[in-house]
């Protein structure tokens, strides 16, 4: 009887073991909140299409573009550090995959407010005040012509700066004009806001401050400084 039970347990475990083996190194993470969690600032339909269509397409295209290559087991940061040697499909889709995952984490329901702690201090000392930082960050978002992203970045010298990148590029890529470690980001592709805000990108950015997740930025900032 005991023997049968052992066989039974082993048999039951096989599908799970197989699944673990098949689990890809690069995963498509679940959205950390419901589609409607950021209402009324970011609408439910935008979140659903943005995550389930755009983000998922970047992930799927990234997986397809690197199929059978060593990138399948290479950490994203290493891929970005050598992105200039990769085909443009990797650059675009790896960027789209990674940037969006970071973006979801940069937001949360009941977010907003101001950063405290070390990040709060660094922002104040770098930009003069939190309001000045917000102004410069929003301006970078409005001025990015076409599709792209805005970033708060820790540079090699440990100092904060704001940059923007075209399309799905990011500051971790070795082709970035202003390289560094991003701690906070904003998607300014039209798909991020067009259903609710249409041509009014500035209104989208104003609304977005109400859902930013400063705890997450704080965490990335502390990690970036530790690496120095």
């Amino acid at each position, binding site marked *: 009887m005991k023997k049968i039970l052992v066989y039974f347990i082993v048999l039951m475990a096989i599908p799970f073991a197989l699944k673990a083996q098949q689990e890809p190194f690069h995963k498509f993470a679940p959205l950390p909140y419901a589609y409607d969690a950021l209402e009324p600032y970011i609408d439910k339909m935008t979140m659903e*299409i943005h995550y389930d*269509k*755009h983000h998922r*397409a970047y992930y799927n295209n990234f997986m397809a573009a690197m199929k059978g290559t060593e990138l399948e087991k290479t950490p994203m940061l290493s891929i970005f550090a050598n992105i200039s040697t990769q085909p*443009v499909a990797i650059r*675009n889709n790896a960027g789209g995959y990674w940037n969006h995952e970071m973006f979801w984490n940069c937001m949360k329901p009941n977010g907003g407010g101001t950063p405290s702690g070390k990040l709060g201090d660094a922002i104040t000392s770098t930009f003069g005040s939190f309001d000045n930082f917000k102004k410069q960050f929003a301006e970078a978002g409005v001025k990015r*012509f*076409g*599709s*792209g992203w805005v970033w708060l970045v820790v540079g090699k010298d440990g100092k904060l700066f704001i940059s923007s990148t*075209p*399309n*799905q590029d990011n500051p971790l890529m070795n082709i970035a004009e202003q390289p560094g470690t991003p701690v906070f980001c904003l998607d300014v*592709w*039209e*798909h991020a806001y*067009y*259903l609710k805000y*249409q*041509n009014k990108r500035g209104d989208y950015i104003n609304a977005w401050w109400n859902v930013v997740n400063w705890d997450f930025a704080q965490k990335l900032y502390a990690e970036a400084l530790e690496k120095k």
Partner: protein
Amino acid sequence: MDYQFPSLPYAFNALEPHIDAQTMEIHYTKHHKTYFDKFVAAIKETESNGKSLEEIFANVSKLPMAVRNHGGGLFNHTMFWESMSPNGGGAPAGQLADAINAKYGSFEDFKTKFNDAAANRFGSGWAWLSVKADNSLCVCSSANQDNPLMDTSDCPATPILGLDVWEHAYYLKFQNRRPEYISAFWNVVNWSVIEARYNSIVK
């Protein structure tokens, strides 16, 4: 010359159901108008003020980025509106049809090539059918508001048909489904205008 904001050659809802009225209204009164206003403000600061857009594009690499972006946005959208019609669709005729068949094998093969250019443009931009200096046809795409008339272009030519693939051109109706928008576009292409452009270049 004074720069003029062109009127839309048809009503906002004229291209329904292929291009929806809300998209047309915002696209024309907000996006296009903003490019016009910003271009006029930017060109005033340069010695090229008063020159034609074609002349400006031929030297755009030496002008401020705002001239390139907004001048492109002004010209490209004007051409785009004129390239569409409520009575559009079908296939080109005459010399243009012959040239398309000679170059691409068939109208369907040309459409496939143009569709690919439009679908594969990553981020914001345009797909073009243009006439090169040797009068041959070419299909290409450009980023943002660039176009083949600009001296920065990697496919320099005279465009005769442009398709806007910025997300603002289709997002309200088609969201992430850019290929569906491209398919719908063929139903409103005003081939008689495209043919006239072609004929005036190769004459």
